[in-house]
């Protein structure tokens, strides 16, 4: 399995797509910070928050994460490399685990600009705010900017950013079963984007229904997973961490269930 992971990492980082995706997230994260800087200063009107949100991690990762799964997992079906791996005795369980790990590594790589740009922006001491649309790293930027920065706050900021990345990874893990089931990149992007929109709707429903809230809180889409800040308690951070890990593992197991007896065309 280690060989499969090594080979897939070799493949992913040979691809120009991953570099393009990285460039897009870098650009979007900078734009997100720029909008969050100019709006509270009054250089941009409040009506631009919607446009600024388009550059946020919540929005871009929903698309680019699914694109990553589409290209690097569905692509393996299209160019038949997965066929060769199975025919060469690569077990399906090992394939699922190695592809999942490489997928998570790729997502980690492309989401890094958001984490780094957010932390750097907070460290500048300037005021950033995007109002009610703030979520994910944009929320950290809106809530934490302008605070007095100490070593412990910075350390917690890094922990919060790390946990938020984990929540993103856990959410995006849903792309795995979709990719292994439908095997078409465009469908993965469409289905996952629909899921992310649906999760937003469910979150608002959760505020009115305890049942929905309880169910959703067991997933990375529920609770305040996307609203973590330095003020979040250790328990909340740990719960976000644990739920994300367990959910991610559960999704990988489901993916194996789907792929275990699937015929490869």
């Amino acid at each position, binding site marked *: 399995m280690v060989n499969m992971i090594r080979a897939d990492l070799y493949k992913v980082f040979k691809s120009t797509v991953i570099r393009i995706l990285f460039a897009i997230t870098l650009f979007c994260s900078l734009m997100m910070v720029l909008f969050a800087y100019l709006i509270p200063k009054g250089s941009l009107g409040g009506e631009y928050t919607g446009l600024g949100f388009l550059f946020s991690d919540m929005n871009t990762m929903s698309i680019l994460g699914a694109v990553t799964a589409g290209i690097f997992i569905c692509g393996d079906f299209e160019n038949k490399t997965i*066929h060769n791996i199975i*025919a060469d*005795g690569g*077990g399906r369980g090992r394939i699922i685990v190695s592809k999942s790990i490489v997928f998570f590594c790729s997502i980690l790589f492309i989401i890094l600009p958001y984490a780094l740009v957010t932390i750097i922006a907070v460290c500048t001491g300037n005021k950033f705010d995007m109002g009610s649309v703030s979520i994910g790293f944009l929320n950290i930027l809106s809530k934490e900017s302008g605070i007095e920065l100490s070593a412990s706050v910075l350390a917690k900021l890094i922990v919060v950013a790390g946990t938020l990345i984990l929540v993103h990874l856990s959410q995006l893990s849903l792309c795995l079963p979709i990719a292994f089931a439908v095997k078409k990149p465009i469908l993965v992007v469409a289905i996952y984007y629909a899921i992310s929109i649906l999760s937003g709707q469910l979150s608002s429903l959760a505020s009115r229904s305890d049942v929905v809230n309880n169910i959703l809180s067991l997933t990375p889409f529920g609770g305040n997973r996307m609203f973590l800040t330095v003020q979040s308690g250790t328990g909340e951070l740990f719960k976000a961490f644990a739920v994300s890990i367990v959910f991610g593992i559960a999704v990988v197991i489901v993916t194996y269930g789907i792929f275990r007896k699937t015929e490869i065309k």
Partner: protein
Amino acid sequence: MKEYVLKTNSLTKSYHGVKVLDNVSLAMEAGKIYGLIGRNGAGKTTFMRIAAGLAFSTGGHVELFGKKGDKLLEAQRKRMGCMIEYPGFIPYMSAQENLRYYRIIKGIPNVNVEQELLELVGLGNTGNKKAKNFSLGMKQRLGIAIALLGEPELLILDEPINGLDPLGVVEIRNLLNRLCDERHMTILISSHNLPELYQVATDYIIMHQGVVKQAVTLSELEEKCKHHIFIECDQPEKLASVLETQLGTTNYKVMPDKRIKLYDYLDNREAVSRAIFDNGIMITEFSIQGDTLENYFISVIGGEQNG
């Protein structure tokens, strides 16, 4: 007990109630080249896909190197190399990078094997050219090189000469023969190019509508396809009588269309033509023929209407 490289027992595969493989029982020995012949939809690729673990049988079982059962088969497949339907490669990588990808997966430490294999299949000078820009023949060669990584004991190739130029066909044929002779590799190869297959395979498996119609060795096939004098005339019954009474042979066959295949007198055709002439039989065709693999294949699967 003899250990077979690949053995199937009553292998059956159905899709939506339609049998695409029906009780296929085959045994392949080491060091032989098996030609899998059949029309489109005969079940050749399905058979290969099940052997490779890409599809699952609905009945019967597969044995690889004497082992059966999902886990053991998975382990034995490490001794296999496959190229089924289309070569599997990463389009944005060069040939060498593709081989490196698979070499890492297989855990082969020897880096030199990449260039050696590229030289072996004639892709030694493709440099940084991306595989997506290769011609169909080059892609086929790359697929074969990938299948050969790790020196497999069983090589499964589905239509490997598709898209190859005539020289390429000869090169691949020689390569397969060499692999079989020098490395004692067992090769299962399917092809629609029957004359080409005839020059490579040592054994033939003829499939039709999911059923193995015949499994013959090359010598058995040659016997079945042996040469004859082909005679078409106005009085076939009289000709048959002449062959038996005057030429003293019963080694002939009257075809359904009344034409006659005479397997004797190939070196003394003059005697035959004289006997025909002396008996006032009018001939419209008199030629030396031999069944080609194609004709034989057509006769095995059930005549011209299936050919």
